[in-house]
């Protein structure tokens, strides 16, 4: 018998079907209207400070902070970051890992199904894994050491949050060094007494006033100064503009020693001295040879300020074991610079005040310690270290180094460590004979060879048997070399936890992925100008955390809640209380009174916090010019360098005693494992691949911002820059897709043919997101991450740093059907 519609519906309402219908997602609204004008808020970033118009809870417009006269074009990518379709929206867990945990199929990692978790379940799992690893293994099995270019902000700095929380639970393996300057920061303390790479340098006004010759050695400041470790001020650009004028009027000569015509060279209109890749040390040895033979070096300076010149010169003159004199003719065969030009260049350097300014990419090669050491030796021979506009710098391309510092105190940060007197829940620091700290770029070696031993900076490191890794705001699947080797290493890991805001490859290769919000979704405070300390910036929360993302502070407070330490973790304060505390402590530190004509006054006056927060900025004013190492020059005994002897060490007895074959007692030329331009392996792979810092990203940050990325990609792929000759020889035209390959891997990139590049040199900027077609070893990278091709060996036994720029490749026009780019999406699925 048919029933009526009404009866049917009544029945449905009372049946099990009704339970399938949820309560609804809408609530009666309390808000009547939304402001149509919106509000301008202050924000900071690695790319600089900016103001954001927030309308209806959304960032509608971004414009540079008024004080920034040289804002970077990358601000155009900010909105694309916040609302990016690659955002991680929920805590996610890899399905196979959820089912089987450490007994699962780890070869699926990177190519697997995920499921969503509630925050509670996700943090429970995270905590369970920490417990399992500390209980079943010990601190040696946990690596939470990798940290990177976190989003800016002193309160929310994600590495601090991750490491403090994990350290409150137990000890773990840490790293030493970084990918940017690993070789430089290891060698220079032996030579000049500090890392130099992260030190304030001679102020630009003094360089502009005193230098007659500036050598930009493998250095592209105009490109790299767009970003800073803290909020970047871009004040350096004012000085680059002045330098450009001085080059034009002939008062300063600037020479870029580089295989490539750099962005800086083109902007400044300066000269270029072409050199074959990775042969700078040979070139410099020949310069030393000329300076010595022609008695152009500063004997008095060497005698007063340096040690170990003689053994080094014996090597240069061919009286050491290798019996090879480092003449310009000898160097010419390697570096491609005619011998007479080498001599001329040496004479130029010695002719007047010369400032050497090195970049960092040159030390990211095998034996990367050597060019930095040799640069210091050259500077010592020129005798101008400690003079305004003379000597050597290793960092004028970084974070506005060279802009006079205000002298104000910067704010502190949320603590990275456990509070004094407190111990972790698992107070077990027994690493079972393994080291608790490993050189950062050797962690894949460590995963592949647990128990293995390497020499490092004068000691022996025994690799721990790592079972679990935690990454927060750190993307090793962009910054580490040889991704196919990484894949093998990741098969060994039982658990990988990543906290980030976008589905980059590191998330894809993880088991548990937790969504942090971006820095634009939280309140914070930052120094304006990492080295200049120009001011203090309020970083207003522009919008609430998107989707289910949370601040690192919230995430790790709740992780600590699971072992009852959340109060201690947060020190009983919330976000804004922390921001205020950091401000107030900074205000106290800057409250010192100094004399003035009208009586004592506070040197760096700061308003009350509420006023600052409303204004968004406190300006500390410009600082006074300063000369690096002037104090040492003035009184070397009193202001001794931090080297073992207190002097510049041209020969290091300490390093000599280590007995390393790849980093000897003085700078030497060593052939590389592979090298273009006639070097090893160049018959098979004739092109040098340089993977320098990108022009339109901060490492891998902002690569996912589609509209902005489209301003530089070629057919949706990362560009590979090449010379017209190399392109023509391979039938490649500008705009073509090319397959770039060597024995380590293969990738697709888009050809950019440019006269800026010489034959045998190609460039792919690092930071391009990795997106293989599948999880197999050797799979084609669909977007163009150069670390698919780079070599994963340490620079030497001294620094064990990255050698990314020792890399040769071949390329061909890609004629097949191009696979879609997988870099910016979540994991691809295994075949079901």
């Amino acid at each position, binding site marked *: 018998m*048919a*029933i*009526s*519609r*009404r009866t*049917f*519906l009544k*029945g*449905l309402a*009372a*049946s*099990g*079907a009704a*339970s*399938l*219908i*949820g309560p*609804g*997602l*809408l*609530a*009666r*609204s*309390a*808000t009547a*209207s*939304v402001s149509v004008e919106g509000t301008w808020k202050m924000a900071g970033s690695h790319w600089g400070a900016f103001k954001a118009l927030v309308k*209806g809870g*959304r960032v509608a417009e971004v414009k540079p902070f008024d004080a920034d006269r040289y804002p970077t074009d990358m601000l155009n990518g900010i*909105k*694309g970051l916040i*609302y*990016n*379709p*690659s*955002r991680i*929206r*929920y805590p*996610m867990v890899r*399905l196979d890992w*959820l*089912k089987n945990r450490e007994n699962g199929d780890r070869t699926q990692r990177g190519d697997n*199904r*995920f*499921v*969503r978790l509630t925050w509670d379940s996700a943090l429970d799992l995270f905590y369970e894994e920490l417990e399992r690893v500390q209980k079943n293994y010990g601190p040696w099995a946990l690596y939470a050491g990798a940290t990177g270019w976190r989003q800016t902000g002193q309160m929310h700095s994600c590495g601090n949050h991750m490491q403090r929380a994990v350290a409150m639970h137990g000890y773990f393996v840490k790293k030493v060094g970084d990918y940017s300057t690993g070789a430089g920061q290891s060698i220079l303390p032996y030579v000049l007494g500090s890392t130099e790479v992260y030190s304030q340098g001679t102020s630009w006004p003094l360089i502009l006033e005193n230098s007659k010759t500036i050598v930009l050695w493998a250095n592209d400041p105009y490109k790299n100064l767009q970003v800073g470790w803290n909020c970047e001020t871009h004040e350096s650009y004012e000085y680059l503009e002045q330098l450009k004028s001085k080059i034009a009027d002939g008062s300063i000569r600037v020479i870029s020693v580089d295989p490539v015509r750099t962005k800086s060279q083109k902007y400044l209109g300066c000269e270029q001295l072409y050199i074959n890749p990775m042969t700078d040390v040979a070139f410099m040895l020949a310069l030393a040879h000329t300076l010595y033979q022609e008695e152009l070096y500063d004997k008095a300076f060497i005698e007063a300020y340096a040690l170990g010149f003689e053994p080094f010169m014996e090597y240069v003159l061919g009286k050491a074991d290798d019996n090879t004199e480092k003449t310009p003719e000898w160097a010419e065969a390697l570096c491609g610079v005619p011998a007479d030009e080498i001599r001329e260049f040496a004479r130029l350097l010695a002719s007047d005040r010369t400032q050497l300014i090195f970049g960092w990419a040159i030390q990211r090669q095998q034996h990367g310690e050597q060019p930095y050491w040799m640069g210091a030796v050259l500077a010592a021979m020129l005798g101008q270290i400690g003079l305004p506009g003379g000597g050597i710098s290793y960092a004028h391309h970084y974070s506005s180094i060279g802009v006079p510092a205000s002298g104000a105190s910067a704010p502190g940060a949320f603590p990275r460590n456990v509070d004094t007197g407190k111990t972790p829940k698992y107070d077990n620091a027994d690493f079972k004979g393994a080291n608790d700290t490993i050189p950062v770029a050797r962690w894949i070696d460590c995963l592949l060879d647990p128990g293995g031993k390497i020499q490092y900076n004068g000691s022996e490191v025994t690799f721990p048997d790592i079972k679990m890794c935690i990454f927060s705001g750190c993307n090793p699947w962009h910054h580490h070399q040889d991704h196919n080797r990484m894949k093998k290493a990741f098969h060994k890991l039982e658990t990988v936890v990543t906290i980030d805001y976008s*589905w980059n490859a590191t998330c894809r290769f993880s088991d548990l992925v937790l969504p942090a919000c971006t820095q634009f979704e939280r309140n914070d405070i930052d120094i304006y100008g990492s080295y200049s300390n120009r001011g203090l910036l309020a970083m207003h929360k522009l919008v609430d955390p*998107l*989707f*289910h993302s949370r601040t690192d502070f919230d995430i790790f407070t709740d992780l600590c809640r699971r072992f009852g330490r959340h109060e201690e973790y947060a020190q009983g304060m919330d976000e804004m209380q922390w921001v205020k505390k950091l401000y107030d402590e900074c205000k106290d530190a800057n409250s010192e009174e100094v004399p003035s004509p009208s009586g004592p006054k506070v040197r760096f006056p700061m308003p009350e916090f509420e006023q600052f927060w409303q204004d968004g900025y406190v300006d500390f004013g410009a600082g006074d010019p300063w000369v690096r190492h002037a104090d040492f020059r003035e009184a070397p005994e009193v202001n001794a360098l931090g080297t073992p002897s207190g002097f510049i060490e041209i020969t290091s007895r300490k390093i000599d005693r280590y007995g390393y074959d790849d980093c000897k007692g003085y700078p030497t030329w060593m052939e590389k494992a592979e090298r273009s331009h006639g070097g090893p392996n160049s018959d098979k792979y004739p092109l040098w691949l340089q993977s320098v810092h990108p022009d339109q990203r901060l490492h891998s940050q902002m690569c996912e911002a*589609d*509209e902005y990325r489209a301003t530089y990609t070629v057919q949706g792929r990362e560009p590979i820059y090449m010379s017209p000759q190399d392109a023509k020889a391979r039938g490649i035209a500008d705009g073509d897709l090319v397959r770039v390959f060597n024995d380590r891997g293969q990738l697709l990139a888009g050809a950019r043919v440019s006269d800026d590049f010489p034959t045998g040199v190609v460039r792919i900027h690092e930071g391009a997101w990795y997106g293989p077609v599948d999880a197999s070893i050797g799979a084609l990278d669909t977007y163009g991450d150069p670390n698919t091709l780079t070599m994963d060996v340490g620079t030497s036994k001294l620094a064990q740093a990255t050698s990314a720029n020792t890399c040769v490749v071949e390329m061909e026009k890609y004629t097949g059907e191009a696979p879609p780019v997988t870099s*910016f*999406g*979540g*994991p*691809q*699925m295994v*075949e*079901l």
Partner: protein
Amino acid sequence: MTLDAKAGRGLPPHTRNEQWQERALLCRWLSTLFAKELDEATLKAYLEGEAEPLLALLCDHEQLAPLVARFNQALNVLRLFEQPRLELAADFATLFLMDGRTAAPPYASLYQSGQALFHQQPTERMETRLRAAGYDVKKDFGEPADHLAVMLDYLATGHERLGEASSEAEREEIQGGLVQFIDEELTPWLPTFAQRCQEIDTASDFYPTLGQLVADYCATLSTQASAPAR
């Protein structure tokens, strides 16, 4: 009472009120399905055939009958799975929860022409609509207003309001608004969404079928909502 699901088929024509009531039910049911994964109890209910009355209502629309059959077949296959809830949750994640580029993200903003970003004009327009109707998205849902589940819930609410309207003029205004909403906010992207649901490899056909069902059902609403009812 027990309900014979099959009894729903071939029901006598419904009154206008019943039609609105049914549409509200179906829209909210679909909204529930796209809002989050099934929990164990709900999945059990599906596997025990509790959805039959709802499917029967869908079968009122002849063109949806093959999809209903496909959905039932998907349930049959799910019964063979060892861990059907987890597999379905993984399918749900694969299709809807990972990045917003691949698969079938359930957000209108990502289907706009030009750059695909979250929180674009469709979100704004949806917020304006919700505000005008006196609603907000519940905070704990944590999704923007252009999420498919929110849009379907808005549609359900609209049909409920039709039943509560005090005058014919008010009803006509609401009705017109709903048709316009479907045509302007759902029709432009639901077919693409549905298509993407079919292209992704999933363990079960449960969600791909639902993806097609929601698009086709909304299409019927668009054409029939404006047709006069008894």
